[in-house]
């Protein structure tokens, strides 16, 4: 049962063949069995999950209409608030914090009858590409337990790859949904910025953060996408437009015909620094897209070479401002309050104790980039590069419907391999960052296993803003042509 897709589980639950309680219990059992080795979850909400499942079972038994994924279990990244259930953001700073409200994404999931199994591990404050920056220890990649599951949403992707959940939610600021998807052989989607509410998403970089669906199949991701997306007055950057028809596009794509679809291969994302097996997998995927009828052309986006440096100025700058709220006064931990020290001293001691090294590095980089005298050279220049990247996307999408690239330059690296070298870690997000800076839609779908190490490789598909359905169509067609990629061995 745990190997079924969410769509299959929903169909069986809604037809009365199985109950949501049975499905939920099967996944809770799986978590109990394997999460000691994987560590995908920071908190498992057994009671809450079973209560939500019972409610769906009652609705089904009474013949009441239910939503398309009602009764299906899901793993929620610990960056989205859950009323009454701990939310740590992978940080000691919020250890023990119980949010008094639900994020809009959480509320939408609950209203749709989706069963939230628990909260998944992540790099602290979503800053990282390996989940090693979690204050609660790393998550292990189910395909090879001594390797990273990607980050920051490594817990969500690992839960999918280990069959602990058929659905998950991630958030993507520079690739934190897509890169974990790529290295765990799962599907991860960053919707167009502004189409999924950020209300209750603990902010890292507000102009880049975007929640999105994670799943093992394209159709499952599309079904989840339609549940969480939509305008929200509680997020002032939420766009008031209809949700793109992603489920219909996934069903159309599954028919296996991409005749007339123009696909652009981004020429910047290959060459030095790219693992040969990743490039071979990517080339094979492009050949399959051609065989499905797509017209494939090469597209140059020269400013993409500057996306990584621009991102590592913009995101830390916004983070240095956003994380100022962790001041030890209203919520979170407080350290060193002995009745003698000033509020400022307590604040500094608390932030020193509560934040891990990567968070401190980024706060200081952001503080530097925004300081008088350096602002123009650093933050100001990065904002101009952001303009150039958006222009490159606009020019490319005049000639093609979607762009493709590898999702990440290498397969999963070993735990500990890059922790001492921040720049090497940052390069895991080389191909995913441009779509965060420009705000367009992008996703990763497995393109099989690398022939040199047997580890999953991701194909990134990018679409213009609000054209999310285009990439779902291409991904669904490719998924059928590709066939199964096998499953993680949990060794």
């Amino acid at each position, binding site marked *: 049962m745990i190997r079924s897709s969410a769509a299959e589980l929903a169909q069986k639950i809604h037809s009365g063949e199985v109950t949501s309680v049975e499905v939920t219990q099967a996944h809770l059992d799986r978590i109990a069995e394997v999460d000691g080795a994987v560590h995908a979850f920071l908190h498992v909400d057994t009671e809450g999950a079973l209560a939500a499942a019972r409610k769906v079972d009652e609705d089904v038994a009474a013949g009441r209409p239910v939503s398309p994924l009602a009764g299906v279990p899901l793993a929620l990244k610990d960056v989205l608030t859950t009323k009454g259930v701990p939310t740590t953001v992978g940080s000691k700073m919020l250890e023990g914090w119980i949010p*008094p409200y639900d994020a809009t994404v959480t509320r939408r999931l609950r209203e749709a009858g989706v069963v939230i199994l628990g909260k998944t591990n992540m790099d602290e404050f979503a800053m990282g590409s390996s989940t090693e920056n979690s204050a609660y220890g790393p998550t292990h990649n189910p395909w090879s337990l001594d390797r990273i599951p990607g980050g920051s949403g490594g817990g969500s992707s690992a839960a999918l790859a280990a069959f602990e959940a058929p659905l998950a939610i991630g958030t993507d600021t520079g690739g934190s949904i897509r890169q974990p998807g790529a290295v765990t052989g799962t599907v991860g989607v960053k919707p167009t910025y502004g189409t999924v509410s950020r209300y209750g998403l603990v902010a890292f970089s507000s102009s880049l953060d975007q929640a999105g669906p994670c799943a093992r199949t394209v159709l499952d991701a599309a079904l989840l996408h339609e549940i969480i997306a939509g305008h929200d007055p509680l997020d002032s950057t939420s766009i008031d437009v209809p949700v793109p028809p992603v489920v219909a596009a996934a069903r159309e794509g599954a028919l296996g015909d991409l005749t007339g679809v123009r696909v652009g291969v981004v020429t910047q994302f290959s060459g030095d620094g790219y693992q040969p097996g990743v490039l071979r997998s990517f080339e094979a995927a492009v050949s399959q897209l051609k065989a499905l009828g797509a017209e494939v052309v090469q597209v140059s986006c020269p400013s993409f070479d500057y996306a990584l440096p621009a991102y590592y100025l913009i995101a830390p700058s916004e983070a240095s401002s956003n994380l100022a709220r962790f001041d030890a006064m209203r919520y979170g931990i407080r350290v060193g309050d002995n009745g003698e020290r*000033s509020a400022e001293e307590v604040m500094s001691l608390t932030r020193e104790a509560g934040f891990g090294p990567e968070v*401190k590095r980024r706060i*200081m980089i952001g503080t530097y980039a925004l300081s008088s005298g350096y602002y123009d050279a650093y933050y100001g220049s990065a*904002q*101009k590069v*952001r303009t150039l990247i958006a222009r490159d996307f606009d020019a490319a999408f005049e000639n093609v419907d979607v762009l493709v690239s590898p999702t990440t330059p290498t397969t999963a690296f070993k735990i500990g391999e890059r922790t001492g070298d921040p720049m090497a870690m940052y390069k895991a997000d080389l191909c995913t960052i441009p779509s965060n800076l420009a*705000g367009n839609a992008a996703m990763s779908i497995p393109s099989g296993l690398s022939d040199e190490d047997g580890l999953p490789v991701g194909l990134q598909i990018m679409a213009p803003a609000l054209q999310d359905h285009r990439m779902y169509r291409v991904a669904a067609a490719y998924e059928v042509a590709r066939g199964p990629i096998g499953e993680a061995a949990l060794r």
Partner: protein
Amino acid sequence: MPSISRDEVAHLARLARLAVSEDELDLFAGQLDVILQSVATVGDIATADIPPTSHAVPLTNVFREDVVRPGLGQQQALAGAPAAEDGRFRVPRILGEEA
């Protein structure tokens, strides 16, 4: 020549209210120098004629009706506080002894 000195990192840490240790200062000074030198390449293509982009969605002035909506009650708002007293947040002293 490094783009950032150990003293400058100590200054940044003070600005950011991070009571970093001496060991951390040594580590961060080296790492921040490598990162800043690498990200400074944005200056290579950011010429004066390019307008900056602060946000991918050009929305301005999102309004709503000015009506009363339910919010958190006092108890809920204080539930996550590190210290509370008489229905209020209790904080360390914010003024110096002489004040």
